[in-house]
């Protein structure tokens, strides 16, 4: 045990040393050669089947630096567990990891990620908000690969124009009532998606959970209360159905696609299912920015950064690979085949791509104002605290005021845990 601890200490020291000595070829201490060679790339479940094809491209170009694809679970929590466990063991099994934007700070703080060259992966053609998600304490620890922000799906056959404010949204709910359907659904089960939805309501109202550097708790404010109050009111009036307390992305998308809900807040991916044959809303829906208190709201930024493991044996190849994944040719595959949103600004207005995904310009608008979710090495504990207290308020178990007070206390505990 003791020996393991010293080894851990030495390992961390080595990482720190590696991070400070920027050798010409970018390899840290202990690796041999010039840091090139075969690597592995681990991602979440690839539901489109396009990832292997994309990687085959790279392998054609770099026969002696082949990348092996490791497909992990579809659940982000399980993906994170896989990465964390491997990184703690310092095994370097995953050279390049697909990091949800909220993990980057945590992994970087632990010294698990290799710092990357901002000029290479954070240039001016990359969305600034996406670059921000990959930045921790002034350095970039990931190459933004795809981005995501929630949009409002609405039934264009029932509402003439999408609501831009919360008041308009509530007024429109009368139409849903008349059609005997739920008005608004999102992700309100007690899981990561609730943090996203709560953050959207609270930041739209001008509140925040933590200070930008993650060092102070700022949630105890009238603005945060107003944001949470909005969600609570929507539940209380039945405009968000009680069943939404069990909804994750899948269930909420289902409610909309089967015609049981008039509004849906969700990631852009639902577009495909909603416009597919057999969908109850085919040709009857539109997409807009989320509403806010006095105009379009602020969406939470999701997405994926590609991180290079600090324990990789072939860091140079890994760095070249993440840069290649960000290149225009790869990003086109991402948008066209995988139906995801690119991190490259110019691909949002590309006529070839907007034909397949007409919502891209709207999404770009949303992403320009989107805020990254919290940046803190204790993200998991922070998110759990948010989920617990917001959920209790939505259920009506505690008052908004009580929930915010308790949340402030829990967040304080979460960020001071070290």
């Amino acid at each position, binding site marked *: *045990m003791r020996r393991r*601890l*010293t080894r*851990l*200490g030495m390992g*961390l020291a080595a990482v720190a040393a590696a991070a400070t000595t920027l050798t010409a070829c970018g390899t840290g201490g202990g690796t041999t050669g010039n840091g090139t060679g075969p690597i592995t790339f681990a991602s979440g479940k690839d539901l489109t089947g396009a990832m292997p094809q994309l990687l085959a491209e790279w392998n054609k170009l770099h026969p002696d630096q082949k990348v092996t694809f490791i497909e992990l679970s579809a659940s982000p*929590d399980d993906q*994170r*567990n896989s990465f*964390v*466990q491997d990184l*703690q063991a310092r095994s370097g099994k995953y050279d390049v990891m697909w990091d949800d934007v909220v993990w980057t700070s945590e992994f970087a*703080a*632990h*010294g698990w990620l290799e710092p990357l060259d901002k000029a290479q992966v954070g240039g001016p053609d990359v969305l600034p908000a996406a670059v921000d998600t990959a930045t921790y304490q002034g350095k970039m620890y990931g190459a933004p690969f795809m981005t995501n922000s929630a949009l409002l799906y609405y039934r264009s056959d029932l509402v003439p124009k999408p609501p831009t404010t919360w008041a308009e949204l509530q007024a429109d709910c009368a139409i849903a009532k008349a059609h005997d359907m739920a008005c608004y659904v999102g992700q309100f*089960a*007690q*899981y990561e998606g609730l943090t996203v939805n709560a953050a959207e309501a609270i930041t739209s109202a001008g509140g925040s959970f933590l200070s930008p550097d993650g060092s102070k708790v700022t949630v105890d404010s009238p603005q945060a209360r107003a944001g949470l109050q909005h969600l609570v009111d929507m539940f209380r009036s039945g405009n968000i159905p*009680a*069943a939404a*307390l*069990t909804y994750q992305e899948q269930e909420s998308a289902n409610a909309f696609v089967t015609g049981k809900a008039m509004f849906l807040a969700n990631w852009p991916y639902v577009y495909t299912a909603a416009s597919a044959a057999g969908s109850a809303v085919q040709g009857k829906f539109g997409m807009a920015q989320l509403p806010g208190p006095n105009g379009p709201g602020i969406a939470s930024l999701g997405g994926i950064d590609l991180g290079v493991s600090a324990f990789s044996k072939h860091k140079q190849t890994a760095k070249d690979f993440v840069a290649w994944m960000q290149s225009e040719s790869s990003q086109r595959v991402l948008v066209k085949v995988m139906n995801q949103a690119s991190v490259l600004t110019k691909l949002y207005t590309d006529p070839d791509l907007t034909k397949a995904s007409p919502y891209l310009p709207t999404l770009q608008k949303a992403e320009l104002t989107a805020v990254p979710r919290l940046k803190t*090495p*204790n993200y*998991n*504990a922070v998110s*759990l605290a948010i989920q617990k207290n917001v*959920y209790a308020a939505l*259920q009506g*178990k505690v008052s908004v005021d009580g929930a915010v007070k308790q949340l402030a206390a829990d967040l304080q*505990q979460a960020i001071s*845990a*070290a």
Partner: protein
Amino acid sequence: MSVRTGDSRAFVPRASTRRERASGRKENDGRFAFWLVVPAILVLTVVIGYPVIAALVRSLFSDPIASAPRFIGLDNYFSALWGVNSGKFWDSVGVTYFFAAVTIVLETAIGLGMALVMNQAFRGRGLLRGVVLVPWAVPTAVAAVLWKWSFDPVGIINALTGSHVVWTGSDWPSKAAIVIADTWKTSPFIALLILAGLQIIPGEVYEAAKIDGAGAFQRFRLITLPLVRPALLVAILFRLLDTLRMYDLPAILTHGANDTTTLSILVVQATLNELKPGFGGALSTLTFLLIFVTAYAFVRLLGVNAVEAQIGGGRGGKR
């Protein structure tokens, strides 16, 4: 109250007689037995002894983010028992014991009822035994997914009852869903254990009681219950150990939301999600202690002696 019953004759259809150990035993059994038992003990030492001690040691260290863990003594335990994490810990203890108590009471009641029915003579008893084993054979993970689907807001339970309960959206319905799922899966199993106890009660005893004018309820209270009690208590003890470790059902059905975070879920959360092996080690050690103390108290209070039961009432006879 010591009823001596025969030992298991699963495959040898002969009259049960309590058999002393075969004669001709030599005193050098000891060494031979040692070599037979040691491999199993060694294996268990590796897979259980080492991890438990490692967790205990690790629980005395802190969980910093970017530095080496420091020795902090019992701080992790204090934080769980009455410090910043005590709320979480005691909530989980409450949830775990709640599930244990409610499921065991329900499963025992239903199991006893089933066993009494199955103990009657009718055609197709063997088939019924097979049917009763079906819920037990369904993997808990599959059962959890099945019940999650049934308890969906638009699932079959609400459709059949015409209600709109959001089962996994608030505390008590969530707990009820887990209790129902567990009861379905395990009551039949308890029924089989009790049935085995019932089948060794000779029919003549009932006949005699009938002649003495005992009614059905009296016969149940005065004969069935006392005679089946030992089998019942052992079954309950095993269920107690199982329910206090409950993980699969709530982990899949509710992900621990709505106040269904059992101790096992809390430990996994702390270690694998929050990356706090020290605190997680403290939690798992506390969990083990709780289970151990509960089982010990149960055995002491109710006089179940599973070990003796295993020895088949032998206690090695006379030395």
